[in-house]
């Protein structure tokens, strides 16, 4: 019962969130009064048409952009009150990122890319390497750790990106169209891997996607349209 109660705790609480962009003198509203919670251990998919504000929402709750109004509490921290430097530290400790275009550093080998976020921790050189190798082992890329990104397929690069995202054991994993640049087989592999991270390791995942097949893997589905959340908290009907 205790475990169940703990799992029901909110890991993310978003309250009355507004965001707009400024293009010269033009103000373009993107998000309106967004309020919802994400439970720890959840796998949430954010869906919506282009320009609906889903990537903006993901950026806000991952601490890489700032809201105009409202609050975002992740764990016990209201990240809207943090300075840029504090946000950088917070991201390093609490967020793992998976992007559509993998976003690996091209001059670093796979293992070095995975090791990169660990340079902001107090781990020793040996410990960093062990952690990075373990993360690559988890995504099945032990044999590719000394390869540069350009020597890997799209699917493999995305697996390296996942290893980099989980190597610091973050509070939440955010994924922006993680299968958007992959073929169908690779996309399925990546989604299966993310599903395992959620079910077997209890990772909280927030994923932005256009792809209904990707959304199918999530436990909760949220729709955004023109900056508004258009559904209530509900189980994924897909």
């Amino acid at each position, binding site marked *: 019962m205790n475990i169940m109660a703990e799992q029901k705790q909110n890991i993310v609480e978003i309250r009355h969130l507004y965001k707009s962009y400024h293009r010269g003198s033009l103000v373009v509203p993107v998000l309106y009064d967004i309020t919802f919670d994400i439970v720890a251990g959840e796998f949430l998919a954010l869906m919506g048409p282009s320009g609906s504000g889903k990537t903006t929402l993901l950026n806000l709750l991952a601490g890489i952009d700032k809201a105009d109004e409202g609050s975002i509490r992740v764990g016990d921290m209201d990240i809207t009150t943090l300075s840029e430097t504090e946000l950088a530290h917070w991201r*390093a400790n609490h967020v793992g990122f998976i992007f559509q275009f993998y976003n690996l550093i091209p*001059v670093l080998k796979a293992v070095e890319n995975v090791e990169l976020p660990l*340079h902001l921790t107090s781990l020793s050189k040996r410990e960093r390497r062990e952690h990075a190798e373990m993360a690559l082992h988890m995504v099945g890329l032990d044999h590719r750790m000394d390869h540069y990104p350009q020597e890997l397929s799209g699917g493999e690069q995305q697996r390296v990106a996942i290893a980099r995202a989980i190597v610091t054991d973050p509070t939440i994993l955010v994924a922006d169209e993680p299968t958007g640049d992959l073929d169908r087989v690779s996309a399925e592999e990546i989604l299966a891997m993310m599903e395992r991270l959620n079910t077997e390791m209890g990772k909280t995942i927030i994923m932005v996607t256009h792809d209904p097949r990707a959304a199918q893997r999530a436990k909760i589905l949220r729709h955004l349209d023109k900056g508004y959340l258009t559904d209530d908290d509900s189980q994924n009907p897909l």
Partner: protein
Amino acid sequence: MMILKILFRNAFHNKLRSGLTILGIAVAILAFGLLRTVISSWYAGVEAASTSRLVTRNAISIIFTLPLSYNEKIRQIEGVKIVSYGNWFGGVYIDEKNFFPNFCVEPRTYLEIYPEFVLSPAEKKAFLADRKGFVAGRKLAAKYGWKIGDGVTLKGTIYPGNWDFVLRGIYKGRDDTTDETQFYFHWDYLNETIKKVSPPRADQVGFYMIAVTRPDLSADVALAVDKTFKNSLAETLTETEKAFNQGFIAMSGAIVTAIQMVSFVVIIIIMAVVANTMAMTTRERIGDYAIMKTLGFGGRDITVLIFGESLVISLTGCLTGMILTFPAAAAFGQALANFFPIFIVSTETLYLDILAAILIGCLAAIIPTRQAIRIGIADGLRRIG
């Protein structure tokens, strides 16, 4: 450590662009080094001048002479150790393009005043004994293939006629800054000949060289010499050898300034080229920097990456340019030995090269760094794909 790894790998990631930029910097540093060496060579005579030597000349102009009779009067002034004298001869060897400095001097005292001209005792004895003898610097003798005992004829320009000499000694410089391209012969040889062909020009000297007993007496001795000949028909101007040489340099001050300006223009041009390279590089890597910021790296890390890459490129170019400067300076010095007898790349020039490279690297990185730091992470990430 990882930042350093990324920095170095980034610097050579685009091999063609980095290679061409490094080549450009190397050529600029080479040009800068050579131009600075030309300027140093211009001042080599000033640098080599002794503080315990004075030069006395006619107060009106160097082209006017002084009576030989001043020699004894100067020698009697307190603080004077040795007095020598001489004239600029201005002779031409075979053809006018074969320029080298040639003087007639009182040989015994002149060699005493200039201990940096090193002659073997036998050669010195032979030179002093032969009124038609001359000594030449090692580089000059080597250039024309002269050997001891060889006869050499100079065509006089100030003192008309063909003047025959016999090589009695080849002097070596005591150190690198000694000019080894000069030609000295007996003042008496000139004077005796002039007495026959143009008596009014006889017993006249172009300059007196004075060695003082102590360098701190130089000013007093100079004043005393000039005071001695005040209100005479040929008033004197006495100054240290350094000031005298500097006076010559001042005549060509505009050329030196022009060379200095060109050397700095070269640096400014290459700075613009490196800045352009860094701007392109940073624009390409804006996504990488956004990723690093996303992962938690700060502005300081990004600054280190961009400044570091710029400095690695500029210092690699600088090192290449510095290495190339030595053979280039040797070839340049050899080709223009008549004009720049001492053409040595100085330590100061090498320091200036490094300073210029650091300046290029840092200034070229300022604007790209500012752009990379100021761009929002979300904007940076949008540029990927």
